[in-house]
């Protein structure tokens, strides 16, 4: 099956083409079915490949597809790499992708752009597969920019809305800033190694100076900051929630935004060599995690809360990468994909029930009205808050334990982030599902559970969010950490814990106790005391206002970049271009005309004038001859 790896991206591509060309002519049912089946087929093939690879001795197999650029000086084959990392990501992408496709058939049922939606969604899965399956940076980059395009198309899916279009454009441009870094990184890799193929360059990394490796790693990380929404390039992700909710779940939580993590893990050889780069990754990660978590505390839009939570969780994953816990980060990518997709789809189900309302201040008491949604979201909330034995607990704990080994300060910041997470998530849960309904009568009348196509994916994801932790059980429990062994072949320096078991137990105990305390506090605040977020911004205290407004980062960027560039654009055009450069050109032209006009007067047709001129000329020549002598 490994030889047929090209089938994995091929199925979604076919789905894309069918829906793209004939989507409007076929029925919605058929359109959705084609889209779902293409992803399912891709998942099945991925699963077969995954199983075959597990039994194979060679854990890094190359599959040639075709020759893309093949010249003496530059060789970039269209080539796939089947190894534990790519196969694992394939399973996540196609597996979660399939569930979200199924969910979308229900969620998008009433939308007039139904087949267009699935066209984009299939195309997204195609590019995402390329991103993880390629055997060189170039194919990864193709996928990388391709998913960026799909993200652009899907955020602006409802294209009549200007705010959504702006969000889409912002996402694309912010990502391009990162992409420039990524591209320069790829070029430096090419200049250094003469190749961009993974299987060629990583073995040579040791022969290159550390400073070059650091530059490469830093440039690549700029790309990761864009795609995975890290400081300072994160602001597009919360705005990206303008897209339909399944898009938020699939692209802006479960898969695309983890591309940065994937890329760093793929390039772990570079980061293992460069301490400077690793340290930067860890610091950027933990800062983003904490920063985004604080913003999440004060948001009232159910999707925005989840968006900031995603930014924060991605920060934690980068923290893991920065301290060298690569497999832990992949583990967290996996569990996060389960519970965050679940939470988003749950939120979608809530929004569906509320007739489009997203403000949690106007919800409340939904738990009896939409039971399946409530129970599954409760599971998701517990999982993300890190309570055992749910999946998030294991993956987060692994990252924090490795961080503790590395630096206690980073660990503390990670712990604080994790406790803030428990707060804002339970705040969301309590405000949405408990208490009295705060919406309009009309909304209350229409409250309903979503159709089976939407609830079944919720249930499956909930089950995964519960048991997903089994993928990476703590070794100090005497269990086998499957994930870390699985990824061992692709990681230069696998990170095995050197902590004492007592310390590990203590860390784990602290994390659980912290989470429980925060959840109890949240319970007291919102359930016992009936605390509600204020309705108007001016009721907030000044410091709360700053956080509520996301630290005014968007406004700052506007003032620092957008406005100056717009100003320069006008100034360059009006003053520099027209009134200066072009004026000089015209000036030269005019002076030629003026000189011409003056000189022309000499040719006035008067013989006498010419004779005088001739005589004066001769005299001048004779005089000059004498003078020179």
């Amino acid at each position, binding site marked *: 099956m490994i030889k047929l790896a090209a089938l994995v991206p091929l199925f979604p591509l076919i789905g894309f083409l069918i829906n793209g060309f004939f989507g409007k002519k076929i029925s919605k049912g058929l359109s959705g079915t084609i889209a779902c089946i293409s992803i399912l087929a891709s998942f099945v093939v991925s699963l077969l490949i995954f199983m075959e690879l597990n039994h194979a001795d060679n854990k890094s197999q190359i599959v040639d597809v075709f020759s893309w650029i093949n010249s003496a000086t530059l060789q970039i084959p269209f080539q796939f790499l089947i190894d534990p990392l790519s196969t694992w990501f394939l399973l996540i992408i196609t597996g979660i992708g399939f569930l979200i496709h199924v969910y979308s058939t229900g969620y998008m049922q009433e939308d007039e752009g139904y087949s267009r939606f699935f066209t984009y969604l299939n195309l997204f899965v195609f590019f995402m597969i390329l991103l993880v399956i390629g055997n060189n940076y170039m194919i990864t980059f*193709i996928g990388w920019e391709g998913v960026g395009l799909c993200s652009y198309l899907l955020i602006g899916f409802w294209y009549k809305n200007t705010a959504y279009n702006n969000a889409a454009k912002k996402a694309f441009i912010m990502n*391009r800033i990162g992409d420039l870094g990524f591209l320069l990184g790829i070029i430096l890799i090419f200049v250094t190694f003469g190749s961009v193929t993974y299987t060629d360059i990583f073995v040579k990394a040791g022969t290159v100076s550390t400073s070059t490796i650091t530059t490469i790693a830093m440039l690549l990380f700029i790309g990761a900051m864009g795609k995975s929404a890290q400081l300072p390039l994160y602001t597009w992700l919360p705005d990206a929630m303008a897209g339909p909710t399944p898009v938020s779940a699939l692209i802006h939580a479960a898969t695309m935004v983890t591309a940065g993590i994937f890329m760093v893990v793929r390039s772990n050889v570079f980061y293992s060599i460069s301490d400077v780069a690793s340290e930067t990754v860890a610091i950027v990660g933990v800062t983003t995690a904490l920063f985004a978590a604080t913003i999440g505390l004060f948001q009232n839009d159910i999707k925005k809360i989840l968006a900031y939570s995603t930014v924060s969780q991605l920060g934690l994953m980068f923290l893991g990468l920065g301290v060298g816990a690569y497999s832990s980060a992949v583990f967290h990518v996996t569990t996060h994909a389960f519970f965050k997709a679940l939470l988003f789809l749950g939120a979608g189900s809530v929004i569906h029930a509320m007739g489009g309302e997203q403000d949690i201040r106007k919800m409340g008491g939904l738990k009896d009205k939409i039971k399946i949604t409530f129970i599954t979201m409760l599971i998701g909330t517990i999982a993300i808050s890190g309570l055992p034995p749910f999946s998030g607990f294991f993956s987060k704990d692994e990252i924090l334990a490795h961080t503790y080994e590395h630096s206690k300060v980073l660990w503390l910041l990670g712990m604080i982030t994790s406790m803030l997470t428990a707060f804002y998530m339970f705040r969301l849960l309590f405000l949405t599902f408990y208490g009295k309904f705060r919406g309009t009568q009309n909304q209350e009348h229409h409250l309903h559970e979503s159709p089976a196509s939407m609830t079944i994916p919720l249930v499956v994801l909930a089950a995964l969010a519960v048991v997903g932790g089994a993928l990476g059980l703590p070794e100090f429990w005497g269990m086998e950490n499957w994930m870390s062994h699985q990824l061992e072949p692709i990681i230069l320096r696998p990170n095995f814990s050197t902590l004492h078991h007592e310390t590990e137990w203590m860390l784990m105990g602290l994390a659980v106790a912290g989470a429980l305390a925060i959840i109890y506090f949240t319970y007291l605040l919102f359930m016992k005391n009936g605390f509600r977020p204020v309705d108007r911004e001016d009721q907030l205290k000044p410091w709360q206002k700053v956080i509520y407004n996301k630290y005014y980062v968007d406004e700052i960027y506007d003032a620092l970049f957008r406005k100056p560039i717009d100003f320069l654009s*006008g100034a360059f055009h009006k003053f520099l*271009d027209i009134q200066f450069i072009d004026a000089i050109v015209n000036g030269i032209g005019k002076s030629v005309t003026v000189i011409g006009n003056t000189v022309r007067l000499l040719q006035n047709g008067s013989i006498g004038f010419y004779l005088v001129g001739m005589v004066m000329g001769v005299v001048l020549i004779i005089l000059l001859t004498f003078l020179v002598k």
Partner: protein
Amino acid sequence: MLAVLLILFPLFCSFILFISKGNAGRTIALAATVIEFVLGLAAFYLFKQNPDSSLLSYNCVWVESLNIHFAIEINALSLLMALLTTFLLPLIILTTFNKSENHPSSFYALILMMQMALIGVFTANDGFLFYVFWELALIPIYFICLLWGSNNRGVITFKFFVYTLIGSLFMLIGLIYLYNHTNVEGHKSWAILDLYSAGHALTATQQGAVFWLIFIAFAIKMPVFPFHTWQPDTYVVAPTQGTMLLSGIMLKMGTFGVIKWLLPVVPLGLQEWGGTAITLSVVGIIYASIIAISQKDYKRLIAYSSIAHVGLISAGILSANQQGIQGGLMQMLAHGVNVVGLFFIADILMRHTGTREIDKLGGIRSMNGNFAVLFLIIVLGAVALPLTNGFVGEFLLINGVYQYSATMAAFAGLTIILGAVYMLRSYQNIMLGDKKDSSLAFGPLHTNDKIVLVIICVAIVAFGVYPKPLNDIAEQGTRSIIALMK
């Protein structure tokens, strides 16, 4: 002989068109350009079979006393340019099918004459012949712009004509200077290889002077900052087909000229002054991109974006390494196709809504979804998304500049970001959002328009997914040039 045919056939058709009357002109023109494209493909096929085929070159004495030869050759470089020219011409002719021009036959005759001159410029292997074709190309486009352009065209076209002519004169001085330094068994020679060796024999100072004499002509043609101010006005007032010829093919005379008639001629001059020229090019990328952001007229926006794109091509070529030149060639092809597509979009907008003002347009997507998709594909090609034709060239170009200077590459790379800004901003304002009054009339596209857009989009995707056939030739051409620089 095929090479000669490629030049003479359009000339012959041009004469027929001059004397023909009525509406037959467009059919003849289309048929002629399609046949010419087939000839181009035949050349491609021949070249693949045997690059040294005698059919691909021709050489005879033209003016014996000055040792001027009618020497033309289709090699890797000229083949790519000939393919670009012959591919674009039928499309450019097709874009006229939905409007009625005055004196259509003369209009088409001039376009075909232009094609003859362009192919001549790309294939000439004799310095004097090259100069003749170079100037010959200016005459038809001057009349196309002057007679069929829009308001205020007189002054603007005249400025364009004089500006580029002055540049060409500098080049002529440079070429004559080289010619005077040739010495083949006691005779002077215009043959390109002799000019190369004459250039190599010059001192560094002399080479520097020749570098600027020749580069100025190319820099004005492309145009490179700060020689660009004729371009936006000319592009805007020229008729759509004139703009397409200017931006799609004619500006490549400049970049092509640098590759064939500058880099291998004065290697020391390049060493001395290449950095300055690259800096100007890179400044132009950022400068023009930033100006493009605030443009209100979509045609003018594309004009500025073209300065930015060509700045990157120029910077890459002048960095004079394998990746830079090869990327330049690839990007010349891609830019030719994409910019013709974009100017055609501007033309369609104008025809359907009566305006190209970005602020007055909006919501066209709701009126015509297919047009929105085709437009978007061209935009993606222009911002060089991977798997579109723009990407390979742009990657190689930035790569080439990087090998010259990493800092320069970082600045040049800003085109990736700024390009996305002005392209997506304008796309959004024109196509997305709520319908505006101007867009209400935007009905279905005419069949001819659709055909042109579809062909362009197919080319954008096809050569993005599978760039190998063209890239192989570009690599071959680049290697031969680099060998000649030594």
